[in-house]
Structures are given as C-alpha cells and as structure tokens.
C-alpha cells in the first residue's frame, strides 16, 4: 500500500526522549540541534538570524538546525461504527499510512493504536523495517467494533500508561464525550509535555455540510447510539449551521486540552496541505 500523501511531521515541543540528542536526523529542519549557517533568504524568520556571523561577514546569515528526530509517533485511529460512514475510514487509512511512512522514512519509531469503545489493536512504536507492513496489515484487518460507542479518554489513558512520551496523532471523527479529556490532559499542560497530541478531524462531506437537497423529510439514525430523529430539510440552513457549530465546539474543546486539530472533509482536495499546515502552524506557535 503506497502512501497517498507526503507529510512533513513537525513537533511543536522537543521530544522527551533520553536518546533524542543521539539520534541525528537525516534532514535539515526545525530541530534544536545546530546544523550550520547559510545566507539569509527572503521569508526566513528574523529570529533565526545569526547576528555574530552577520557582524563577521557583513551579510545576513541564518542558523539551520537538524530536524527533530527520535520521537515516538503514535497513530491513534478510530475504527468505531461512525467512522464507517461514507469514505471516512478510507481517508483515515490513507492518513495513517502516509504518516507512518513519513515517520519511518526518517527512522522514527511509529506505532498504531486502533480504538472504538476500548483499545482494539495495539502495535507499540518501533522503527523496525517491518513496522510499516505491520501497520498496513493491522489497518486492513481492522476489527469491527462490537460496541457502538466511541471512547477516547480510556484510549489516551492507555497510551499514557504504556508510553512515557510520544507524539500522538488522533485520527477520528470525535463523536465522543470530549469533556473527560480535560482531567486527563492536565498533565500535558506543562511547557514540554511528554505526550504531544494532534487531532485530525475526519468528516464525511454530508457531515461537514449537507447540500443538494432543499426540501423533504429525512429520518436520521445515529450509527452509534441507534437514536433516531426526523429532519425537516426545508430547514437545511439551520442544520448546516448546527453542524458547523458542533465542529467548532469540538475544535475548541480539543484546543482547550492542548490538542491542536485540523478538520479534514473527505471530499477535500488539499488534505496534504491542510495537515502540513497544521504541523507548520504549531511549529510557528512554538514558544
């Protein structure tokens, strides 16, 4: 299975790994380890200007660093029933495979956790050559969730117990109670959290914005709880506004517990750009 997207995984915080400094990355990037100097190019951050070198040479030079490496990337992928609505799980698989490929390509350990109401599959982070195939196989044989619900908090609790530190990417539609994350992520509120989390909010187009129908009556059934509700499509605008508000609430709730997120509709053509932008934006916000 070939990765569909090419991601540049950038951490906001330096990895909390005892051996992080001993593992030099292959690429230049935005790490903490000094790599060298180069001439200033338009667009470079002024904070990177090496004033001493400027004084010596009379030209503007910027410092370059090694890309951070030796982080444990943990892909936390939701396989609950709601993820099987439309092509959400297909996108989630593509994202997972692409992220795993990006991490493993730069010799970083990568693990996989599939969850629904509980942890269903757990592959600990590893940089072994067969890890990519293990991850792809696990995704292709993702177990069907017997329970209807999605529970994220127990999953994160599981991760925190198993891994001392990691960079977790949660790929889910977040149809779960996010209030429980608050107490869980309090520990991550420190300046350099051990568990750095990013959320990729995967949504089907109909879930993002319902279009193409302007009248009629529709009965919706919750794929997880089985609850039914009738919908008057003559009030479609209100429905779409409700979806938007719900999306924004999810983003705010995640941000409140220190999890940055990006909304990824299945039909979007710029998935790669959106994810890379998320990583870049986080990096730019680095203190």
């Amino acid at each position, binding site marked *: 299975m070939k990765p569909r997207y090419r991601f540049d995984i950038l951490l906001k915080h330096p990895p909390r790994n005892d051996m992080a400094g001993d593992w030099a990355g292959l690429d230049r990037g935005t790490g903490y380890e000094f790599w060298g100097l180069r001439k200033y190019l338009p667009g470079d951050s002024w904070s990177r200007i090496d004033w001493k070198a400027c004084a010596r040479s009379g030209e503007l030079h910027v410092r370059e660093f090694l890309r951070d490496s030796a982080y444990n990337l943990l892909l936390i992928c939701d396989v609950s029933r709601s*993820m099987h*609505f439309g092509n959400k799980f297909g996108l989630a698989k593509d994202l997972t495979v692409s992220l795993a490929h990006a991490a493993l390509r730069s010799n970083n350990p990568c693990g996989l956790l599939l969850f629904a109401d509980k942890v269903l599959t757990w592959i600990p982070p590893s940089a072994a050559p067969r890890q990519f195939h293990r991850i792809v196989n696990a995704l292709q044989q993702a177990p069907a969730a017997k329970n209807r619900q999605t529970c994220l908090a127990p999953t994160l609790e599981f991760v925190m117990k198993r891994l001392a530190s990691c960079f977790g990417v949660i790929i889910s539609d977040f149809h779960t109670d996010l209030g429980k994350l608050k107490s869980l992520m309090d520990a991550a509120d420190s300046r350099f959290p051990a568990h750095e989390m990013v959320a990729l909010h995967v949504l089907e187009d109909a879930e993002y914005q319902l279009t193409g129908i302007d*009248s*009629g009556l529709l*009965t*919706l059934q919750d794929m997880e709880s089985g*609850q039914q509700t009738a*919908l008057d499509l003559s009030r479609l605008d209100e429905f779409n506004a*409700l979806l938007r508000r*719900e999306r924004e609430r999810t983003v705010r709730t995640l941000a409140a517990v220190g999890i940055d997120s990006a909304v990824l509709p299945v039909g979007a053509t710029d998935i790669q750009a959106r994810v890379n932008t998320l990583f870049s934006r986080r990096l730019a916000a680095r203190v």
Partner: protein
Amino acid sequence: MPGFELQYPLALLLLLLAPLFLMLRRRTRRKLPFPSIIPEMANLRPGFWKRNYNGIFFSLVYTCLVLSLVNPGYSKETVEEFIESKWLFLALDLSGSMKRPVSMFSDQTLGDLALDGISSFIDMRRSDDYIGLVAFSSYAKLLAPLTFDKDLLKAKLDLVRSKNHSRIYRELGAGGGTNASEAVWLSLSAFFSMLPEENRLSVEQIAGMREFLLGEPGALLDIPQKIRNAALGTGMAVILFTDGRIEPTQRAHVHSGALPNLVNIITLMKAVGVRFYIISVGGEVDEAVERAMQPVTGEPAVGRIFVTSRGLDREQIEEVYREIDILETNRNLTRITLQPRWTRHILAFLGFGFMALHLLLRSLPQLRKL
C-alpha cells in the same frame, strides 16, 4: 341512528392489528445512518403534521377498509301520509225479479233503481278508490274489474239498464236464480288476483281454495299462506244488492255441491278481513247467513245486512249507500318505511380516497420522505 347494525361484526377484530402494523411501519421505515445525532437536532424536527401524516393516513385508510368489511348499516325511516284507497266490489242482482217496475206508474224497474243507487255511490267515493262491478242471476259475470275510472264504471252500469236491452242484460235476466255466493266469490277472486306479485294466487290456487268453499259450513278453512302474509282485507269490501233470498247455496245445488257455500265465504272474509254488506230488498236472508254475519265476541263485525221493504224508492237506496259510504270511510294512514342502507361502498370509496390523497401528499416536495 335507527336500526344500526353490522353485517360482519367480527371483522372489527382486524382493528386490533392496526397498532402492530403501525409499529412495523415505524421499524421498517427508511432511515439514513448518520455518524452522530446531537441533542440540538431535536429543534429541527418537522412539525406534528409532517412527522405523523403518514401514520394518520395509514390509520384512516386501514380503518375505512376494515369498516367496509364490517359493513355497518342503518335504516332510513320514511314517513308517508296518505288517504286510504278502498277496494270495493258492487255485486248487483239482475235476475228476472229485478225487472219488475217500481210502481204501476213508472217505467223504471227495481234493477234501474239499484243502478241509480250504485251510480250515486260511485259518485260519493274518492277518485282513487278502486271499484269493481259484478252482475249476477243464476251465474255471476264480471262487468268491470277493479278500476278508478268512474266513467267506465258508469258506462258498464248503463250496459245493464233495462232500457238498453243489452246482450248481457238479456242473458242475466233469463236466469231466475239468485246466485249470491258465486257473485261474492267472483269479487273475492278479483281481489286475490289484484294483490302484489309476491302475494298473488295462481289460477290453480284460487281454484283449490274454491274447492274448500264448496263443503258444508264449519269445514276446516285452509287459507294459503300468501293471502295471510298479504295482510289482505284492510279497506276491502263487497256490497251485495239483491231482492232474492240469501241462502248459503242454491237449492238446486245442495246435493251436487257445485257452488261455494256463502257461509264459508263469509267465514273466509272474516278470516282475511274483507267486509261484506248485504242490501236485501224484502229481507229474505237465511238464518245460517245471518248467524255467520253476527260478530264473534271480541272480533269486529264482518259487515252488515241492510233490509229494505219491497216498495223501496230511490231515496231509500241512496240512503243505504250513504250509510255504507260512511261505514267505509277512507282513513288517513301513515306509512313508515324503514329502508336498509349499507355503507360498505361509501367506506371503501372513502378509504381509497384517503389512499389517493396520501399518495398525492407524499409526492409533494415539502412532504416527501427521503
């Protein structure tokens, strides 16, 4: 509602299945799986009518179709007021004795006087009374069947006036006997033949009945069920005018028994309720006939015998007929008819109407189910 009834009441049990069908419809209706239903979506639910019009129409259609199976019915009461129409038969004796002049100074015979009386009686009656004429001597002849055409009746009466010397008059006048029983039986036969189709007797049945009347008085009278069911007799009367002796049967036939016995006929008239009036000029009425005419205790009289002197005049005859006219006064009647009305067709039509309306509503963009 008067006379409400259900043709197949057990079919009402099918209504008990309606909740089951509604539940099945609810369970099997099309649903769009959606990842998450948030509580705020409850505010976007359609109104009661949009949400439930399917169930409402289903219930209406189902109820109408079940009720059309049950087929409720009621009786429509029609009250009709009308004046009774009398059926009267006038039997006139035209034997030789009726040819005698009323007085030595008059050229009018007793028969003519009787005809004048009958003519005035016909004028007295209402226009919708059925009147028939029978003339008799040794045998009886139907002059006119029951009709309300008074001109026809008078024309028939003119036929048997002495001055006209008609063939019927001559034939009847040749006979010397007074065969009253045959005349009364002929009148009754005419009544029987005028009954509605379901109560009308065939010629064989009438002939069979006549056989019973030939016997001695007191013989068991077998009245056909059709006649009993016809509620015959209300407003029917036979008026016999004769100057001869009224006997149960003619002397010549006592032994042969070929004529109906008048006592038996009076018993039959009592049984079926036909009234019988005898105008006897000279008052020669047999004791057995008089006894038969006497009312039995607790029962209405079958009729009356009017006895006049032999030297009667026109006034006397008209007086007798006036009296009979009063006795046979047309009553004001009220007919209450209950017509059964079944509602199956209405309910089935209503059910299919609701179904069509439902389909129409479902096809509207605002109400269609996706």
